[in-house]
């Protein structure tokens, strides 16, 4: 059930990212839900348990993008791995307010890191393929800082719903003695 929930949740994130957010947010300010998702899954489940989900999400992200398939996925996997190494976040869970703040900060940092990684990867791919059409240039204008701010806010929601899969379904479907 948890797997089904995560599957549906990732699809919903995909639809939100590609189809819904563009209606409500101005150009260049759409939050990056996928980066927040990778960071959240890393925090909740760790690298090994969530790498499959992040790869699935990454391929969805790449499907609707102009860059070569795999580049967005690779950036998400690197974010997941780095978050998994940041054990300090897990220790903050008992301090609720500080933890919420750090989740938002993590989503913001993941968005920035995702864009930086993607620029590097696409630059490398463009160089190797000798294809000037492969470019990705996020602009560091006011809109981008709004994007980071919205990503931080969205990150809290993504974390909440990702965590829901663990907390909501586990007790219900676990043996009675474990409830």
């Amino acid at each position, binding site marked *: 059930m948890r797997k089904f929930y995560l599957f549906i949740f990732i*699809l919903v994130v*995909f*639809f*939100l*990212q*590609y*189809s*819904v*957010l*563009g*209606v*409500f*947010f*101005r*150009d*260049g*300010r*759409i939050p*990056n839900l*996928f980066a927040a998702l990778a960071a959240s899954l890393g925090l909740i489940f760790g*690298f*090994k348990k969530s*790498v499959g989900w992040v*790869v699935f999400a990454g*391929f*969805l*992200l*790449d*499907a*609707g*993008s*102009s860059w*070569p*398939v*795999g*580049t*967005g*996925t*690779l950036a998400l*996997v*690197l974010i997941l*791995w780095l978050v998994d190494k940041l054990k300090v976040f897990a220790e903050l869970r008992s301090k609720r307010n500080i933890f919420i703040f750090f989740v938002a900060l993590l989503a913001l940092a993941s968005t920035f890191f995702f*864009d930086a990684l993607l620029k590097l*990867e696409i630059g490398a*791919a463009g160089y*190797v*393929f000798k*294809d000037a*059409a*492969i*470019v990705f*240039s*996020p*602009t560091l*204008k006011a809109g981008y800082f709004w*994007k980071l701010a919205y990503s931080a806010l969205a990150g809290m929601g993504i974390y909440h719903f990702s965590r829901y899969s663990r907390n909501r379904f586990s007790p219900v479907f676990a043996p009675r003695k474990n409830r």
Partner: protein
Amino acid sequence: MNFFSKNAKFILTVLLLIAVIFVATRGADNPVKGMILKITNPFLKTFRIFSGGMRGAFEFLGSIGDLKTENENLLKENQSLEAQIAKLKDTEKENELLRKELDLVPRKEYDLESGFVIGQDALGSGSVIFIDKGSNDGIKEGMAVIVSNGVLVGKTGEVYADTSKVNLIIDKESAVNGEILESGAKGIMKGTYGLGITMDMIGQTEVVKEGDTVIASGLGGGVPRGLFVGKIGQVGQSEDKLFQRATVFSSVDFSSLRIVFVIKNSK
């Protein structure tokens, strides 16, 4: 050695993904992209329609307080428009003559394919949108895309079976040959980071004025001559001072495109 054994799954995943990046076919030929877009197309469309309706409802609720003022303004505007109608009747005749003179393709002679906007690029630079029509509907890469009133908004990029990407004219990688209707000056129109359009490479001897009309020149193929793009705004010099450069204001709100038309060919 300890690092490699501890992070074997991570290293393996990264290596596999690097292999995918370099081995997988790019563009519209990639089967993964095509398949995912084919499966998700109806869902994307449903989500888009629903969210468009939601936005409309929010905007309506937010505008209730302004309705009285808006009503008064509309009455004034109505009077002004009635006066303009009379003037436009004269202009219509003049326009027909100009079209003949400039060899523009009349709008009714385009073979149009309507497409519903189902999404935008993931990172929301605002320069790429997806429509629900693809190669099954006769769409090919590089075709001009317009909105209902005949204003050019972009060109088709990667085309899949039932979905196409449209690179909007405000994309900084897009380049469309343009012409200023009043003076005949030619230049290249490029996007400025999804924010607007700049017309570059205009000769120094050309006369370019604020408010001049910009159309597609038809050079280079793909985009038929005569499609309206926008009005000239600020005029300046290119960085190397060899050409003139001007901003172009389009009447289209690129962030709220719903239905667009692909020009398959001129009849």
